[in-house]
C-alpha cells in the first residue's frame, strides 16, 4: 500500500487515495481499461450468433445437396443455432425492458 506519501491521515480517506489503493490492490488498472465494453460484448455475441446460424445453414445445404449426409450433425447444428438465437433474443428483451423502465421514470 503506497499511501504513506500523503502525510496527513485524513488524506487516506480521500477519493484519490481510495482509487490508488484499489489500483495497488489488484495491479491491473490498465487491463481494466482494456476490458471490452457492453456494446463490444454484444457485438461479439451477435457475431457468434451469426456464425452458429451460418454453420447450421451450411450443414443443411450440404445435407440437401447430398455432399455430406450427416443427419445428426445437421440437426444438432440447427438446435445449437436455435438455442443461441433464443438466448440472444431473451437478452435483448431484457435489455429493452430495462431501457423502457428507465425511460418511464417520472421527472
Amino acid at each position, binding site marked *: 500500500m503506497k499511501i504513506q506519501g500523503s502525510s496527513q491521515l485524513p488524506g487516506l480517506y480521500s477519493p484519490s487515495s481510495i482509487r490508488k489503493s484499489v489500483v495497488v490492490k489488484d495491479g491491473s488498472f490498465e487491463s481494466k481499461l482494456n476490458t471490452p465494453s457492453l456494446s463490444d460484448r454484444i457485438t461479439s455475441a451477435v457475431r457468434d450468433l451469426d456464425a452458429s446460424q451460418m454453420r447450421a445453414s451450411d450443414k443443411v445445404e450440404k445435407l440437401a445437396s447430398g455432399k455430406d449426409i450427416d443427419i*445428426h450433425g445437421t440437426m*444438432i447444428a440447427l*438446435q*445449437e443455432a436455435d*438455442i443461441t438465437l433464443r438466448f440472444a433474443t*431473451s437478452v435483448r428483451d431484457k435489455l429493452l425492458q430495462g431501457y423502457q423502465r428507465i425511460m418511464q421514470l417520472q421527472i
Partner: protein
Amino acid sequence: MNILDTLRISASGMNAQRVRMQTISSNIANARSTSSHEGEAYRRKMPIFKSIASDPFGNAVDKSLARVEVVDIEKSEAPFRQVFDPSHPDADDDGYVSYPNVDLLYEMVDMMTTSRTYEANTNAVETTYKMANLALEIAK
C-alpha cells in the same frame, strides 16, 4: 464447458455409433464373400473407439469430460468357416472354401445395441436442449 459442448459430446457418440452401424452393415453384406481385395475371404470388421478429453486445457471438470472418436477399424483374426465344396472357384487344393468369420447372430445383437446406444445419445441431446430451454424460461 458450456451447454453447446455437451451437444458436441453427444454428437461424437452418435458419430461413433454411425460408424459402428456401417461396419455391421458391411459385415452382413459380406457374410458370404469368399474373396476380397485382401486376397482371402472377407474378415469381420469392428471399430475401435477412444475417449478424448473434450477440452484438455480447461478446468478440472472440463478435462475429465470426454468425447468419443473412432481411431481405427480392426479386422477380426478369428478363423474362417471351412466348407467342403471342390467346385467353388475359391476352393483351396483340398476342396475347402473359406467363408468369412462373420456370425449373423452376433451382428444382429450388435445392431440392436448400436441402435439403442444411438437412441440414448439422441435422448441426451434432447434433454440438454430441454434444460437449455428451461434456463431460458427464467428470464421471461
